[in-house]
C-alpha cells in the first residue's frame, strides 16, 4: 500500500495504490491526515492502482468526505476499477461520492 498527497492549483491530488486492507488502513490514515485540514480546497483521489479496499479503507474515505463537506469542498474519485466499484456500490458509497 502506498499513498501520496500533492497540492497543486489549489487542489489536493491523492494517489492510492496497492491493497487498502485492515492492516494497512492505519498507516494510510496517517498519510492522509493533511486532507482533514483541506480548508475549502477540492480533493481528487486517483484510484487507478487501488486493487483492494476493505471497510476500514471506506471509513477513511468517509472521514475525508465528511470533513470536506463541512467546509464546502468536493471529493472526486478517479479511475476506480471494477471490483472496487462493486464494493462502493454494495455499501451505497457510490451515491455519496463524485466520480471522474
Amino acid at each position, binding site marked *: 500500500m502506498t499513498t501520496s498527497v500533492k497540492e497543486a492549483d489549489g487542489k489536493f491530488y491523492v494517489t492510492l495504490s496497492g491493497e487498502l*486492507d485492515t492492516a*494497512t488502513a492505519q498507516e494510510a490514515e496517517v498519510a492522509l491526515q493533511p486532507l482533514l485540514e483541506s480548508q475549502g480546497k477540492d480533493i481528487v483521489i486517483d484510484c487507478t492502482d487501488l486493487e483492494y479496499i*476493505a471497510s476500514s479503507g471506506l*471509513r477513511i474515505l468517509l472521514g475525508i468526505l*465528511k470533513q470536506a463537506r463541512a467546509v464546502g469542498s468536493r471529493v472526486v474519485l478517479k479511475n476506480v476499477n471494477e471490483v472496487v466499484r*462493486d464494493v462502493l456500490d454494495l455499501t451505497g458509497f457510490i451515491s455519496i461520492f463524485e466520480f471522474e
Partner: protein
Amino acid sequence: MKNIRKNWLTGLRIVVIAAVLVEGISIVQYESLRRITLEDMNIRTRITLGAMADEISHTLEMTEATMRENLWMIRARLGNPDDMFQAMVYLIDDNPQVVGGCISFIPDHYPSKGRLFEPYAKKEADGTISVSQIAGPDHDYTLNQAFRRALETGVPNWSDPYLYGEPPQSLTTYSYPIRDDDGIVVAVCGLDMDLTWLGEYLNSNQHLKSSFAIMLTEEGKLVAGPSSEKIPQAEVEKAAAALSGNAMDVYHRNYAIGSVQMKASPFWQLAQVYRTREIMAPILKLRRQHMVLVLLGLAILFFMIKRFARSEKELRIATVEKARIDGELTIARNIQSEMLPKTFPENIYGKIESALEVGGDIFDFYRRDGQLFFCIGDVSGKGIPAAMLMAVIHSLFREISKREENTVTILHALNDQLCQGNDSNMFVTFFVGRLDLYTGKLYFSNAGHDKPFLLTGSAELLKTKAHLPLGVFPDTAFEEQSCVLSPGDGIFLYTDGLTETKSPARENFGRERVKAALDACLAQASMTPGEIVDSVSKAAHDYSENAPLRDDLTMLFIKFDPGEIVRDRLTIVNDIDEVSRLSAFVKDYFSRIELDRKAAYGMRLALEEAVVNVINYAYPGDETGEVTIYAESDRKEIRFTIVDSGFPFDPTSVLPADTTLDAIDRPIGGLGVHLTRKLADSVSYSRKHGNNVLTLTKSIL
C-alpha cells in the same frame, strides 16, 4: 337433482372440516413459534446486556483503581490540611471519567479548620480544575448517606446515581474511607463519575426500531434510558415499573422485557424492552401467507367436489361414490407430490410410490452451509388427514432446520408441535440427518423410524438408537449420533412400505431381502442413485408379483461424492496486524483452487471483514486470543469456518447497515458485517463447545 344437492352438502361439509383442521394446526403452530421467538429473544437479550453490564463494571473499576493508586498520596499529606486541595486536583486529573472529587473529614478533625472541612475539586467546562471548600451551614456532609455508610462500615461504596449541578448532570459517587497511620478512619474521599453517557451507550445499537434499553438501581429506580426524542418518557417509566425476575416477561400485552443484574457492587440492573408487535412481525406474516394458501386449497377442494357432483348426473350412485373417493385420493396424492423434491443432484435420488389409498410418507433434503439436511418419515394413518399432517411436518422441518443444525433440536421442535392438540393420536416415525459435504461427517437422530442401510463395502444397517416416534409423548428424549462416510459411501433410507411388501404367500419382503438387493447393486460397479433405488423397487415388486401396493413405498438414496477437496487452515491472534497474514493465506488458497479474480476479491473481503470483527470484539480488553480460519472447497463452492473462543457473539443478529443515508448522516463503522453478508451466499453462526463458529459459503460454479 336431489342427489346433486346432497353431494353439494357433503362437499361443503368436507371443506368446513378441512378448514377447521388446518386452522387448528395453524394456531398451534403460531403459538409455538411465538414461544420459541420469545425464548430466543431472551437469550440474545441476556448475552447483549451481559456484555454491556461488564463494560459498565469495567468503567467503574477504572475509577476504583484511580482511588487505590492515589491513596498513598492523600495519606502522606494528612498532616497538612491545606495540601488536601492539591491532592484532590491530582486525583481527578488522573481519570477522564471523573468530573469532581472531595475529601470530607470527620467533624473537628483539624482544630484550625472548624467543625466541618471538605476540600473539593471540580473539572470546569474549559478543562481547568477549580478547588473550593464546600462544607458549611447549608451543606452538612455528615448527613450524607454515602459518607455515613463509608464511615460506619469502613468499606468503600458506590452511591445510587443522582442529578447534580447546573445544567443537571447524572453522577454517581465512589466513597472511600481514608485511614490515618493508626488505622482510624479520619475522612471519606468521594470521586464523582459522569453517567450522562449511559443512556446513549445503552441505546446506541438497538436492533429494532421500537426497542430500547434502560438501567435501574438495585431497588428498581430508573437511572438511564433512551432519549425522549426516541421513546416517550411515559413508555420508559412503564417499562421500569414492569421489571420483574429474569425471564422474558410480556407486560401490558404489547411489550416484552428481559433483564440482567451487574455481577459486582453496585448491583444495578440493565433491562431491554421490545414491542412484541415488532418481534412477532415475521411470524404474523408467515401466518398470513399460510392463511392465503389454505383458502386457496379449500377453494380447489370445493370446486373439485362440485365437479364430481356435476358428473354424477350421468353416473349411477356406486360410480359416484367411487369418484368421490378417487377425488379425495387425488387431493391427498397432490398434497404429497407437491411437497416432494422435483429435481435431484447427481448424488441423490428418492421417490414415493403411492398406494391406492395414500399414506403419509415424506422425504426431503436441501443444502445449507456445505451440509446436506435430509429426512424421511411415515405418518400413521392414511388419506387426507395423513397427507395434511405430512404437509405440516414438511414445512416445520424446513423452517426449523433453517435455524438449527442439531438433529436432536430439530426432533424436539417437531415433537413439541405434534404433541400439542394431538387429539387424534396420530404419530410419525422420523429420521433426520445432516451430512457435512466436505468432511463426510454424518450426524443423525432417529425417532422410531426403520434403520437405514449404510453402503460401504457392503450394505449394513446403521446402528441407530431406538427412540419413540414423534407425537407420542411431549418429553421424549432423543440423542444425536454420528459417523464418518468415506468418499463413495452411501446411505439408503426407506419406509416400512418396502420391508412390509407382501408375497402372494403373505410373507414380508423384510430387511434381509433389502440388504441382498443393495449388495447386488454394490456388486455392479458405478450404479447411479436412481438406478439403485429403481433396482430395489423392482426386487420388491418382483417379490409381490406386482400386486397393488398396500402402503406407500418410499426410498431415498444419498451418495457421499465430494470430489477433490482442497483444504487449508490458518491460526492468528487477535491483533489487526495479523490481517496481512490472513491476506497472504487467502491469496495463496485462491490461487490453489484457481478462483477467478472477481470472485476471489469478494470472498477475500467477506472473510476479512468477518475476521476483523472477531479480532476487534471477541476478546475483552487486552486479552490475547486465537482465531482459526478453515478453508474448504470442492471447486463448486467455498466454505470458510471461523472459530474463536471469545465472548458469545452472533454477528448475523446485527441489523443491516443503512446504505441509503447521505454522507453527513452516515455513522463511521458498521459496514463490515454488512459487506460479509452481501458478498457471501450464506453466513451462519453457532456456538459449539464454548467456541463461536461462523460459517461463510459461496458458490463458485
